[in-house]
């Protein structure tokens, strides 16, 4: 229990990953290369990527369906997420209980989830069960039962799960409020999982329409990594997924959000809270931003590792918090950059002031050579374990395909890290890291005890944690 380092929760509501960094092997040159893989495009446009890897008798399957919650009808946020839940509740010849039994009886794992820009099915099975794995995955994506009684249940459970989350550690929720407050009126501000209000309005018809329009052959990216025979797997996948017709339209694309100026504060009241959880953000960068590697290197120094500037100030030197950090979410268009931390209610203002001052220091002083050297070594050294498992490799192949990036995104990583020098870092700070005067702020805490003090940061909008939504009215 109680690891000493806070892992900053990646606000998973946007598709792009990326609080973390990326990089390759230790000293320098080559870095890690993506292992070889085979790529095939099926007749219906589905892209298939196969990477045999035989160190364990396991196979991972990752299927991305391009076009996620961005395609939710207006006011019906959570449609894609409910579909993701529903396709696991009976498909093909199996009812809901039989479907779960088939997965777990084989010791397998299979789950479907929604992101802003895709639905993702992830599965891991023993290699002796690859046939079953492909059958279950294609049943879920091609032949879901979408029964009315099951829909009623998944919708009710989704609403109840939000209530349960609000009774739990607020660290897991602060990003949902942050995205909604930062991206007000922009598609990235719509909660991917929906909120209690929107979920109540989603109908089975909405979900079925979404399925018919979005889950189509040319939207599929299928990656398999592990202990299998490529020729055999290619046949299986072609048979399983090749019949799904093409979509009538392209997946939805979000417009580019502009970076906000000035500050505005959302205070989410959790009466009796002994700690204030804060999220300070602005619009950051996209998955394909040419400066993404430089951003990772700079963020490593600022808020991406234990000795980062933020964690040093808020944890190591002051003891104000168990952890402080920063990170980017990078979907297809610029997503959020945010600073997150938490502190005892009575130290709310000193902690936020310190976070702001640390951001000011980044802008004023930039990074010296020693900090840059250290950060480059760190991101290079920490990169290989990110591509160690079948599941991680399969997800990486699909991430590259989803965002139109080639293998050079991985293979060229070490080289890109090597080019991040002082001037590059300075340009990146100016371009991607907001000024402390331009921050959208979310605070979850005991409003009665902090409301007066936080007015100094900007105009305050208040809501209750128990309000059935993540966005302020």
């Amino acid at each position: 229990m109680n690891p000493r380092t806070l892992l900053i929760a990646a606000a998973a509501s946007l598709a792009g990953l990326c609080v973390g960094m990326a990089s390759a092997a230790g000293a320098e040159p080559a870095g890690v290369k993506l292992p070889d893989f085979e790529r095939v495009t099926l007749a219906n446009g589905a892209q298939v990527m196969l990477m045999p890897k035989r160190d364990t008798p396991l196979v991972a399957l990752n299927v991305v369906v391009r076009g996620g919650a961005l395609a939710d009808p207006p006011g019906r946020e959570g449609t894609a997420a409910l579909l993701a839940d529903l396709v696991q509740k009976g498909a093909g010849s199996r009812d809901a209980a039989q479907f779960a039994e088939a997965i777990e009886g084989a010791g397998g794992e299979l789950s479907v989830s929604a992101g802003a820009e895709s639905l993702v099915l992830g599965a891991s099975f023993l290699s002796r069960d690859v046939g079953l794995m492909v059958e279950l995955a294609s049943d879920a994506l091609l032949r879901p039962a979408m029964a009315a009684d099951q829909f009623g249940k998944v919708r009710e459970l989704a609403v109840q799960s939000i209530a349960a989350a609000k009774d739990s550690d607020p660290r897991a929720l602060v990003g949902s409020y942050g995205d909604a407050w930062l991206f007000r009126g922009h598609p990235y501000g719509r909660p991917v999982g929906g909120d209690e209000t929107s979920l109540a309005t989603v109908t089975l018809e909405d979900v079925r329409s979404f399925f018919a329009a979005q889950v189509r052959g040319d939207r599929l990216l299928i990656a398999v990594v592990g202990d299998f025979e490529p020729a055999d797997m290619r046949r299986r996948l072609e048979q399983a997924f090749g019949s799904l017709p093409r979509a009538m339209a392209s997946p939805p694309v979000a417009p580019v959000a502009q970076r906000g100026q000035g500050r505005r504060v959302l205070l989410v009241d959790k009466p009796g809270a002994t700690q204030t959880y804060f999220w300070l953000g602005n619009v950051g960068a996209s998955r394909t931003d040419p400066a993404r590697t430089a951003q990772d290197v700079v963020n490593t120094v600022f808020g991406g590792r234990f000795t980062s500037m933020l964690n040093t100030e808020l944890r190591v030197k002051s003891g104000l918090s168990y952890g402080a950090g920063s990170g980017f979410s990078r979907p297809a268009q610029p997503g959020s950059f945010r600073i997150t931390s938490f502190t005892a209610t009575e130290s709310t203002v000193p902690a936020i002031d310190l976070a702001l001052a640390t951001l000011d220091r980044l802008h004023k002083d930039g990074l010296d050579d020693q900090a840059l050297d250290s950060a480059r070594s760190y991101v290079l050294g920490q990169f290989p374990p990110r591509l160690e498992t079948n599941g991680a490799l399969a997800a990486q192949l699909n991430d590259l395909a989803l965002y139109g990036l080639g293998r050079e995104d991985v293979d060229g990583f070490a080289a890109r890290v090597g080019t991040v020098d002082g001037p590059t870092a300075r340009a990146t700070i100016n371009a991607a890291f907001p000024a402390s005067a331009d921050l959208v702020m979310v605070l979850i805490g005991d409003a009665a005890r902090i409301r007066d003090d936080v007015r100094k940061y900007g105009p305050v909008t208040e809501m209750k944690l128990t309000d059935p939504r993540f966005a302020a009215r």
Partner: protein
Amino acid sequence: MPNPSFLASVAVLALSSLATAAVAASATVAGADQIVARTLPNGLKVVVWPDHDIPNVAMYTWYRVGSRNERPGITGLSHYFEHMMFNGTRTRAPGEFDRVMEASGGSNNAYTSSDVTVYQNWFPSSATKLIFDLEADRMRQLDFDPKVVESERGVVYSERRSSVDNDNFGTLLEQMQATAYVAHPYQIPTIGWPSDIEGWKIEDLQAYYKQYYAPNNAVMLVVGAVDPEAVFKLAEHYLAPLEAQPAPPPVTTKEPPQLGERRIRVQRDAQTPLVAMAWHSGAAPDRQSRVMEVLLSILGDGDSSRLHQRLVEQERAAVQVGTQLEAGFDPGLAWVYAVAPPGFDVAKTEALIDEEIARLAKDGPSTAELAKARNQALAGFWRGLQTISGKAQALGTYEVFHGDYRKLFDAPAVYENITAEDVQQAAAQVLRKENRTVGVLESPPPGTAAGTAAGAQ
């Protein structure tokens, strides 16, 4: 979500012990024949598993000390000590350990449980020598800077507020743990009681260091892109000079048999009431603990499990259900928990759990359920061995809790031999009402003051 990760962290062993279960007798683990283990003259055992899949290394150092070794006045000290292991030696200033490690491409973490404290380093193999130097330095000459001792209290307090005081599950489990044990120190919360967090002294840290941070009380696992002989050379150079210490005093208190059900009711603002049950079960090496893993897996592991099907799918009496087994050096607790829907009568949720347990005790599991538990254990075993970190964790678990890392590879026989009768018997013998503590968390009745956090400051 109701934070199952907290449960998982309370029971360090729980999942891993199931996951490290069954290797099919036919399956051999690639590279396992390359593992080399040696014990230095000072008693430090070093186990090396070369694995060149990625150019990195995972080094895990396990100390046999946790909150089980504490007493009133110093609760939470093991975990606080863990924090202080990063905060300076006689020759390295506070913070230098992290700065040097990160600048060479490495990262680290650590965790503390009731039984053990584990330090984890992940680094490119080019940094291996440096990491040995850093690790040996803090084993040999840790120093406590009074200023850091004070500021780190604030860090731990913040950690407590996050994982316990502002998290309903964390609050309930802490109260139940303290109720389930009347004698054994497993009653102590690993994070520590608030008044002790405020009260630890430098002398407490110094005494702990001498007593527990001795080479003969530790095991080191090194897995990754290394040559074993080179690793042992580094171990000889950096770690062999450490002096062995007298064995720490054993924990001798045994929890007496429970004589009847205990119930607690925790009042906290909650939209979703919680109910949890904890039964006294076995220690890590007991065969009974393997049986309990299978039993709990059948009851609550996954959407096809009995509790999920009955409570979540059929009766709508829970948003989520789960189980967990704590099995360490001494007999731990078997947990079943459920999150009730908003406004739901949690007593009904509890009654349904009772029904499912009674059914399992009466009829035992089906053949298909036993096969499922075995397959899940087998797949979990392999998933754990996909990474160098997973290998280091699995080796450490078997070496420390089962006495020999090689037992990791014997586990399948144990699981294959668990019968329906074993499971049925365990359900009847362990999951008895007289042997359990039941905890309910729900909002206080309207008009009364809401419960404030135990550690409210």
